[in-house]
């Protein structure tokens, strides 16, 4: 598949002249800039190569693809079966007990909501700051948010004792004559996640419309019809482009506070309680930074896998990973700062339960998890991410970003599950061991996340082609003085800019 795409792309050019992607790679290697300030003809060639790469990979289906889908689908089916079993037998098939009433599900909920953060947030922040190198990776990032939210949003439902009654939380006039309790942090959660999933889905969809139109124009039959509906009659008129830009500007500004509020509210599920280890004023920013941390790491993992699997190395470049690596390092430091602030305060206060909880973490039954978290969340990024050689080594970056996510999952587990293990009544101090359905369902959600990406890659363009093309043009327009440079942020167009 990869070779086909490549030769196809090359076939479109004059024989002998280097393909645009080769040019780009050479320039990249020279460390100057990723794209040449091309002529219109060259731009047309770049455009075509990009389109070929992106749209062709959407239609080709290989045996490997089928096997991957079957495997992931199998894991997801197993999880669905486990959920069915849980409904049939009762929530007791989990390992939940008194005093640990929340287990793997809520841990995973917080984890996935955290993952969801970085997609939209990173994309929006980069957009607001008009960072030009964002262009090829916004789509993958925004998709990550939507997928992670779809998955994360399921967990509160899976976790309910009576899942089939989850709609009782929805605030609509009903035959029960009862509105939900908006004083409950869970209702805040519901509304926040509803808002966030709406916002991030639309944030993904908005810039997708021109690409959907492009896909519409390249397809026939049923696909064509579906794309035609989804692309909203997009014709590419300048009026439409203007609206799109304006809409995106509004969105970008709105989506950032939403994203921050969502994870703050998730943290308040815990922060509002009287549970030692949860009741903390630092939780909202701590959870937000933790979310960004795990989200950036997840984005790095996703980008590395995607560029390899879909042969988009020319667009999702090593330099992207390098830059994201720097972001990850910065966030790691901030995360540790918040973590330490909370830990130190608890320790110093000397509250018996807080001490018991810290003992449980540092020397008790949870010590292996706790120290593993410290190592992979703090030590590993801090020791390695300073080095450009590490940041540009895809295998190393994949390993580090995955480790950070494992660490963040553990961090959530330690917060969500172990805090109730110690309370004011030492008679009721307890432990927790997950049941098999919990493990199956949580595993299934990871598979579902991958599966969504796999399916996505076959249905929708993984790179926002129009934005990349626009980027190339902005470069040229600025050089030719057609448009003014709008920000001080160095763009790709500046020689040596953005390093």
């Amino acid at each position: 598949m990869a070779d086909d795409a490549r030769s196809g792309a090359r076939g479109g050019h004059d024989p002998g002249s280097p393909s645009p992607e080769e040019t780009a790679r050479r320039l990249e290697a020279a460390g100057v800039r990723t794209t040449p300030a091309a002529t219109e003809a060259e731009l047309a060639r770049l455009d075509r190569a990009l389109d070929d790469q992106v749209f062709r990979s959407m239609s080709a289906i290989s045996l490997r693809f089928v096997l991957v889908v079957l495997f992931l689908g199998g894991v997801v089916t197993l999880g669905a079966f486990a959920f069915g079993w849980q409904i049939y037998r009762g929530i007791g098939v989990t390992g939940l007990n008194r005093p640990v009433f929340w287990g793997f599900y809520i841990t995973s909920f917080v984890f996935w909501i955290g993952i969801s953060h970085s997609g939209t947030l990173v994309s929006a922040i980069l957009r607001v700051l008009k960072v030009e190198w964002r262009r090829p990776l916004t789509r993958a990032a925004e998709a990550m948010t939507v997928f992670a939210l779809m998955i994360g949003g399921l967990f509160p439902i899976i976790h309910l004792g009576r899942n089939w009654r989850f709609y009782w939380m929805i605030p609509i006039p009903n035959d029960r004559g009862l509105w939900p309790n908006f004083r409950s942090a869970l209702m805040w959660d519901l509304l926040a996640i509803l808002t966030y999933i709406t916002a991030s889905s639309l944030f993904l969809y908005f810039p997708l419309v021109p690409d959907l139109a492009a896909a519409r124009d390249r397809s026939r039959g049923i696909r064509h019809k579906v794309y035609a509906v989804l692309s909203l009659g997009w014709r590419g008129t300048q009026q439409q482009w203007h609206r799109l830009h304006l809409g995106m500007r509004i969105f970008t500004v709105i989506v950032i506070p939403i994203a921050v509020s969502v994870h703050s509210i998730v943290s308040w599920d815990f922060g509002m309680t009287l549970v030692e280890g949860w009741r903390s004023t630092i939780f909202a920013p701590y959870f937000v930074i933790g979310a960004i941390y795990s989200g950036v790491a997840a984005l790095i993992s996703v980008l590395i896998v995607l560029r390899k699997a879909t042969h988009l190395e020319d667009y999702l470049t090593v330099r992207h990973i390098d830059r994201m690596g720097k972001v990850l390092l910065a966030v790691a430091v901030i995360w540790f700062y918040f973590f330490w602030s909370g830990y130190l305060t608890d320790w110093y206060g000397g509250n018996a339960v807080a001490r018991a909880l810290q003992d449980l973490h540092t020397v008790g039954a949870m010590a292996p998890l706790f120290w593993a978290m410290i190592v992979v969340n703090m030590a590993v990024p801090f020791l390695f991410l300073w080095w450009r050689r590490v940041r540009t080594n895809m295998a190393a970056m994949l390993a580090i970003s995955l480790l950070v996510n494992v660490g963040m999952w553990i961090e959530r587990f330690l917060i969500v599950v172990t805090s109730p293990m110690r309370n004011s009544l030492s008679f009721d101090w307890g432990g927790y061991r997950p049941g098999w359905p919990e493990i199956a369902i949580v595993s299934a959600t990871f598979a579902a996340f991958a599966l969504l990406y796999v399916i996505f890659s076959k249905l929708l363009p993984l790179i926002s082609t129009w934005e990349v093309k626009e980027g190339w043009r902005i470069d040229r327009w600025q050089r030719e003085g057609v448009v003014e440079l709008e920000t001080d942020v160095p763009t790709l167009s500046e020689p040596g800019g953005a390093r």
Partner: protein
Amino acid sequence: MLVVDLNLCTGCQACVAACFAENNIGVAGEDQVAMGRGRHWIKVERYWRSTEYPDVRAVYLPLPCQQCGNAPCEPVCPVFASVHSKDGLNSQVYNRCIGTRYCAQNCPYKVRVFNYFAPRFDPPLEQQLNPDVTVRSVGIMEKCTFCVQRIRRAREEAKVEGRELVDGEIVPACAQTCPPGAIVFGDGEDPRSQVARLARSERGFRLFESLNTKPPVVYLKKGDTKNG
């Protein structure tokens, strides 16, 4: 208001058994209770004061729901399943509950009981069930109600007979059976009631007063000396 005199609690477990009988509490079975899923609405918790033989001392803490005035379990429920009743009881409305277990997490006393599985009563054990009390289904939270069904009955009877309730007329199952009379129930608002008199004792304290949960359950401290 409920007063529990720790001087009097002998740890005999009669209250626990009475509560099982009165409130249709299902039995969880060995594996489940080993996991911490016992459905005891009232527990007699045993705390060790010192464990160095032969200087071993312990204290019993009979722990029903504290029916907090400022109940931490209430505001966190998204569906108003845990609400404050007019009588000041902290009531759990089973048929509203969807099982988020948030209330239990936020309960400082860990007295809330979750139905992990549907309750089972091997026939003909179901014939024992108290018709005044719901059999709770799977996936919902339950807890001590101060035997609200008995409160209602007593109130209805007084109403039918056209009189005021008499102090001591309402007796929850635990207080009814308690051999030494360690548990006393009554109207705390009435200063002449027995509970109000007992609650004024110097030994009186409420669990975790610093949390400002304002429970109407007053414990009388266990004395350690001759005239404690």
